[in-house]
């Protein structure tokens, strides 16, 4: 079944120059492997098409049950150069949580998503 990330994770995002970072954190320990499997750098790049003009990198933090994404060339030049309302990338966090991922019925049952 399709599940929106907001059911499995919380997130915080910020900026470094023209790069937005999104830290995606599993709400439960057993949701983390699903994030690792489903929320790949490629899928995130695809999700943010039109908004992220550079590469997407992913770093794994199993100790925190978290993934960190770097979305390059996403902030209209970044910092004071940017004309965007969200020049600091603060709302990329919830934009990522809009993503829908595939979860097996078994996983959905264990995660009490039904």
């Amino acid at each position, binding site marked *: 079944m399709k599940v929106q990330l907001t059911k499995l994770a*919380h*997130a*915080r995002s*910020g*900026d*470094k*120059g*023209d*790069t937005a*970072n999104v*830290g995606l*954190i599993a*709400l439960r320990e057993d949701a983390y492997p699903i994030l690792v499997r489903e929320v790949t750098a490629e899928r995130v790049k695809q*999700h*943010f*098409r*039109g*908004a992220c003009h550079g590469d997407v990198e992913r*770093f*794994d*933090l*199993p*100790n*925190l*049950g*978290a993934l*960190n994404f*770097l979305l390059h060339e996403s902030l*209209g*030049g970044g*910092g*004071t*150069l940017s*004309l*965007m*309302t*969200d020049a600091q990338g603060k*709302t990329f*966090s*919830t*934009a990522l949580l*809009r993503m829908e991922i595939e979860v097996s019925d078994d996983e959905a049952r264990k995660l009490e998503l039904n």
Partner: protein
Amino acid sequence: MKQTIRIAAGQGFWGDLPDAPVRQVEGGPIDYLMLDYLAEVTMSIMQKQKARDPNAGYARDFIPLMKRILPACVERDIKVTANAGGVNVRGCANALIEVARELGLAGKVRIGIVTGDDIMSRIDELLSRGIELRNMDTGEPLSAVRDAIQSANVYLGAAPLVEALKQGAQIVITGRATDTGLTLAPLIHEFGWASDDWNHLAAGTIAGHIIECGAQCSGGNCQFEWRSIPDLANVGFPIAEASPDGTFVITKHEGTGGRVNIPSVKEQLVYEMGDPHEYITPDCVADFTTIRLQDDGRDRVRVFGIEGRPATEFLKVSISYSAGYKAVGTLVYAWPDAYEKAQAADKILRARLERLGLQFEHTLTEFVGANATHGALAGEPRADAPEVQLRVGVRGQDRAAIERFTKEIAPLILTGPPAVTGFAGGRPKVEEIVAYWPALIPKKEIEPKVEVLDA
């Protein structure tokens, strides 16, 4: 040696809640108060202030704040680390000495000052020796913007602050020091951590990272169960309660609002994160993939297991330069067809700008209420939206062109689509853009200076 040191964060940025540091001092026991004032482009603002007035160029708010808390700090031996000195550390120290004397604390306060971060006057000499100060993000050499440079400061680490504390400073004022160093320095000083004790230095650095954004780790801007976070009106700023073994607890004063729990700390840990294996500071390289968190009771999270590696041979330089001008104009369109009207107004505006022959490096239109934050991910805007704000920004080198743009917004009210309002603020302001140029410099080029003055 004390077995626990409590370091309280009082400001997450210059402009944070003015009373937060006072509440940290008065709300319960602390040993140190850490105040971070410097954002990336703050130095250039201060450089301009100093050009107009040689006594200015530091975080002015720091002085009235110290006036309020200095007596309590002296009485209870609370030490303060603050990068409030900006581009005029000495001016800041002199103002503080004056305040101490006014309060009858002459002879009772020692003030440490850390300088040597300002390399503005050395730029040409460095470039001539082949130190190119290339932009870390774009790879461009600094010579590309040489004439537009407004400030250049090296991020200093904890070491000079430790030296100031060792010489008996109660208040340590720095210019461009890292925000993590403001927290790490007291721990090195109190616990005697060696300069190559990478795991402990990494632990103190991560403690600094967690508390440096103030309440953003204690319930502010927290997505996890945000509705249930109690009493944010009275939010408690964070305190790192550190031990000599490099473990620490993140907590806040009793009786304050907000919440410290594992999710709130995790959210702050991933904030502005790059490669988690390599969080590089002047003091060490901290590895965020080694951090362990444990619930330690209500509003307490224990942090342990942190590992670090040797510091690099470089320091980061924060250079600011003039990069042209920008302006943003807004108008609000009401139901019915608010989004469609805002779109029509944007088309009219752009046609007029084109007829005027104005050239911009960048023009951006956003529809606030429809897609300004999440873009296409927000889906097709609702046809029955109660209102949509049209927001158009332009950027360029030609100030006159930007100025002309600002005169084209208000006329849309009488010459464009109907049911429009939201122009009470007058013409948009033309802003000078001061942009940020991050670069690296070999550590051996920089010699921080430490002095301790008596009030």
